[in-house]
C-alpha cells in the first residue's frame, strides 16, 4: 500500500531491542570474534589455507550438493504438503506424523541406518540380495540429505497452506477452465511462493553446513565437503595453523552463504510477496472422496517405506543386537544398548536435555515470531539474513566462536549451550513464520488496530494465531534438533551441563553403533509420544484447509 501509517508504540520498540540484542549476542559478536582471530593469526597464510589440496573440489562438491538437494527436496516436500492437505486422503493423520520421522533421527545415525538398510551386507542385501553400493558416496549423501530435508520443506509449505485457506481462489481457476493440475500450478503454488522461498533457503543452508551425513557416507568414497575439511583441520587444531585454517574455511562458508541468502531475501523475496486482499475466504466445501486419493496414498506409502520404514528397521535391529554384524534374530536380541541409554547416569542428562530443548524451542518460537513481524519493515530483512548466518556456521565452529566470545564467563555452563542452540536454530523458528505471515492481508491488522489494539496486541491476537501451525512447525524442528544435537554441546559442555547426546553418544565413541541406534530409538519414542497430541492440537488450531 501507500505509506502505511507507522504506529510503533513503545512495546514495539522493546521487541525490536530484544530481537536486535539477541541477534547481536548469538550471531554478530561470535562471528566478529572469529573474523578477528583470523585477521590476527593468519600471518599471510590465507593463501596457504586456500591452496590446500582438495579444497577446491570440496567447495564445488558442497555447493553442487546444496543446489541439487534444494532442487529435489523442496518440490518433494511441497508435493507431500499438497497431498496431505487433501481431506479425502486415506490415513491422512498417520502420514502426517510418519513424514516427520526422519527429523527425529540424529543425522549421523541416519547416515548409518541407510548404510545398514541398503549398503553391502545391509537389510536389502541379506534379504533380497540387492545392495546399493552407491549409498556410500555422493549418491548416498545426496539421497539421505534429501530425505532429511523433505520433512522440513513439508512443514514449511504445510504451514504456509494452513495459515490461510482460500478455496474460492482455486474455484475461480477451475471455473475459468483450469484442470486440478493447472489450478495447482497457476494459483495454489504461486500463492505459496514465500513459504517455498523460505524452505529453499533453509534447505540450501542446511545442506551447506551438513556434516554428519557427508562424513559417514561421503568420506569412505573420498567425497569431501567444506564441512568435512573443516573437521579435518579442527582435528589437528591444537596446532594454531590448522585452527586458523578451520576457522577461515568456516568464515568462507558463511560469507558465500551470506551472498546467496541476501540475494534470495533482499532481491527475490519482496517480489514473491503479494499483498492479500482481505475478502470472505469462501465457504469451505464438505469433503468428497475422489479416486485419485487412493493412488496418492499408495505412492506416499511406498515413499515412506523406502525412506523411513527400512532405515528405521535397520536402526531397531542395531539397537537390539549386542554388536555390529550380529544377525538381528530374536535369539540375539538384547536390551543392553537400551539400558545403557536409559541407565541412571543418563537420566539427569535426559532431564537436562529435555529442559534445554523445551526452553530453547519455546524461546526460539517467540524470537522467530518477533523477527518475522519486524521483518515486515525494511530493517528487519537484514536481521533475518544475519540470523540465517548463525545456521550456516558449522556446529563445531559456532561452538568455538561462542567459547571465544563468552567462555571466559559462562564456559561449560548450560547457558552457553542454550546460546548455541539459539544461534543455530533461530532461522528454523523464523523462516516458517515469515513465510506464512506473507499471507496476511493488511486490512486484517488494521481492523484490529481500529478495534483498539496496539501494534503488538494486533500482531499477537491477529497475525500469530493463524500462524500457529507455522510456529508449531518451527517449534517442533527446534525441539527435536536441540534434543539430539551433539556437535556443539560435546564441545561446550562442562561438569553438570552434559546433554543427553553428549553422555550417550560422545561418551561412547560414535563408532559404538548399537548405543547410538538405541539412543535414536529412545528419542523417536520419547518425541513421538508428545508429538502426537501436539499434532492434534495443530490440526485444531489451523484455520481449516
Amino acid at each position, binding site marked *: 500500500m501507500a505509506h502505511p501509517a507507522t504506529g510503533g508504540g513503545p512495546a514495539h520498540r522493546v521487541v525490536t531491542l530484544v530481537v536486535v540484542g539477541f541477534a547481536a549476542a548469538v550471531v554478530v559478536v561470535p562471528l566478529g570474534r572469529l573474523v578477528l582471530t583470523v585477521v590476527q593469526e593468519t600471518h599471510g597464510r590465507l593463501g596457504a589455507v586456500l591452496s590446500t589440496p582438495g579444497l577446491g573440489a570440496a567447495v564445488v562438491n558442497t555447493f553442487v550438493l546444496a543446489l541439487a538437494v534444494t532442487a529435489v527436496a523442496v518440490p518433494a516436500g511441497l508435493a507431500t504438503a499438497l497431498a496431505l492437505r487433501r481431506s479425502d486422503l486415506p490415513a491422512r493423520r498417520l502420514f502426517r506424523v510418519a513424514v516427520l520421522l526422519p527429523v527425529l533421527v540424529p543425522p549421523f545415525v541416519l547416515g548409518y541406518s541407510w548404510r545398514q538398510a541398503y549398503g553391502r551386507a545391509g537389510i536389502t542385501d541379506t534379504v533380497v540380495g540387492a545392495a546399493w553400493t552407491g549409498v556410500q558416496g555422493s549418491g548416498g549423501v545426496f539421497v539421505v540429505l534429501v530425505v532429511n530435508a523433505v520433512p522440513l520443506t513439508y512443514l514449511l509449505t504445510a504451514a504456509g497452506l494452513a495459515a490461510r485457506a482460500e478455496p474460492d481462489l482455486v474455484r475461480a481457476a477451475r471455473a475459468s477452465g483450469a484442470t486440478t493440475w493447472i489450478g495447482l500450478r497457476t494459483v495454489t503454488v504461486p500463492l505459496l511462493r514465500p513459504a517455498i522461498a523460505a524452505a529453499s533457503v533453509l534447505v540450501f543452508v542446511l545442506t551447506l553446513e551438513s556434516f554428519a551425513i557427508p562424513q559417514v557416507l561421503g568420506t*569412505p568414497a573420498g567425497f569431501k565437503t567444506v564441512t568435512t575439511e573443516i573437521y579435518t583441520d*579442527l*582435528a589437528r587444531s591444537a596446532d594454531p595453523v590448522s585452527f586458523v585454517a578451520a576457522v577461515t574455511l568456516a568464515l568462507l562458508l558463511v560469507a558465500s552463504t551470506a551472498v546467496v541468502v541476501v540475494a534470495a531475501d533482499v532481491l527475490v523475496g519482496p517480489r514473491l510477496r503479494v499483498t492479500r486482499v482481505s475478502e470472505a475466504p469462501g465457504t469451505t466445501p464438505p469433503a468428497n472422496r475422489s479416486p485419485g486419493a487412493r493412488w496418492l496414498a499408495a505412492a506416499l506409502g511406498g515413499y515412506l517405506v523406502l525412506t523411513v520404514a527400512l532405515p528405521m528397521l535397520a536402526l531397531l535391529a542395531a539397537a537390539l543386537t549386542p554388536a*555390529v554384524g550380529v544377525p538381528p534374530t530374536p535369539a540375539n536380541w538384547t536390551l543392553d544398548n537400551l539400558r545403557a541409554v536409559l541407565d541412571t547416569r543418563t537420566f539427569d542428562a535426559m532431564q537436562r536435555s529435555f529442559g534445554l530443548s523445551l526452553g530453547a524451542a519455546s524461546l526460539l518460537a517467540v524470537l522467530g515470531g518477533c523477527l518475522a513481524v519486524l521483518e515486515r519493515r525494511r530493517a528487519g530483512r537484514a536481521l533475518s539474513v544475519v540470523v540465517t548466518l548463525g545456521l550456516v556456521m558449522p556446529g563445531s565452529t559456532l561452538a568455538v566462536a561462542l567459547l571465544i566470545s563468552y*567462555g571466559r564467563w559462562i564456559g561449560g555452563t548450560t547457558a552457553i549451550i542454550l546460546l548455541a542452540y539459539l544461534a543455530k536454530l533461530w532461522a528454523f523458528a523464523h523462516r516458517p513464520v515469515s513465510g506464512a505471515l506473507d499471507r496476511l492481508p493488511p486490512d486484517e491488522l488494521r481492523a484490529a488496530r481500529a478495534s483498539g489494539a496496539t501494534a503488538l496486541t494486533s500482531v499477537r491476537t491477529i497475525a500469530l494465531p493463524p500462524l500457529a501451525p507455522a510456529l508449531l512447525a518451527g517449534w517442533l524442528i527446534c525441539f527435536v534438533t536441540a534434543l539430539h544435537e551433539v556437535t556443539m554441546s560435546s564441545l561446550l559442555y562442562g561438569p553438570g551441563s552434559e546433554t543427553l547426546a553428549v553422555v550417550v553418544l560422545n561418551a561412547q565413541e560414535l*563408532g559404538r553403533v548399537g548405543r547410538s541406534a538405541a539412543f535414536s530409538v529412545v528419542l523417536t519414542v520419547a518425541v513421538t509420544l508428545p508429538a502426537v497430541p501436539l499434532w492434534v492440537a495443530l490440526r485444531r488450531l489451523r484455520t481449516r484447509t
Partner: protein
Amino acid sequence: GGSGAGGGSADSITLYTCVGDDTVQAVIGGFEDTHPGVQVDLFRAPTSDLNARVAADVRSGGLRADVVWACDPLTMRTLVDQKLVGGWTPDGARALAERYRTPDYVGVAVLYIVAAYHDGAPVPRSWSDLAGPEYADAVALPDPAVAASALGALGYFSNADGYGLDYYRRLHDNGAVQVSTPDDAVSGVASGTYQAVMTIANSAYLAADNGSPIGVSWPEPGAVGVYGPIALARSSTDSSLTKQFISYVVSRPGQTTLANAGSYPTLAGVPGPTIPAGAPIVYPDWSRIASDQDQLLRDYQQIFGG
C-alpha cells in the same frame, strides 16, 4: 584454570582428555577413592573437539584445564610448543620405558593399531596382505588427518622398509577406502561392509567380545603402538593436587585400574588386555612425524580421496 585450592568448595581439578570414557571414569574413580574430598571435573571429547576446546580456551583467557591427557604424542607436542602444558613429570615416570618419557609429558596408555577382519575372510598375517587381491575393494583405513593413531601408523609405514607411502598407494589401487575413525572401521568390518580394516585393538576386541563376527590380527612387522601422554597444565592454579593426580595415573595402582578398564598400560608388569603371545609391536618415530606431518598428510591425501 581449575578452581584453586582454598576455593570454598571441595578441592577440584579439571581434566581434559580424549581417552575412552570407560577408562577415564575408572581412573578418576580410583583417584577420588584414594584422595577423599577431591573432585575431578572431566571434559572428554574426541581429539578434534578436545583440540578445538583448547584452542578456544587459549583465545579466551587461557587453558581452563589442570591436566591434559591426550591420545597421541603429536597433539601433546603442539601444546607443549605453545607453552600450555609441560615442565613437570612425576617421579613415578622413571618406572616407565624410555620411549614413554619426555621432560614435559609421560605416556600412560597405549593404543595398538591392528588389523581386524570379518569372519571367514583370510587372516592378514602381514600388513602388506591388505594390498593383496583377496582383499580387493574390501579394506578400510581410519583417516590419519582425523585419528592421531592412524597418523602414527602412517608415520611408521612411511619410512618402514618394504612399505613407505607406496604401501598406501598399493592399498588405494587395491580399492581400499578411508573412513573417519578407527571405530567406524570396526563397525564397517563387523557389518561386513569391509573384509579387513586397520583399527585399534581396544575397540576391535570390544566388538569381538560383544559377538561381532570379526577376528583380530597383529600383523608383521607389527602392531603400531601409539601412546597417550598426560601432562600438567602450566596455568594450573592448584598444581599440588594436579600433580597428585598425574602421579596416581602413572603409579602402579593407577595403571592397574586403567588396565582393568580395558586400556593398555605403559607400566611394565601391569597385566593389561589381550596381547597375543609373541605378537610383534612397532613404534613410530614421533619426532620425525612431528617435523614433517604436513608433508606426510599432503602426500597421503594425494593418494586417498584428497
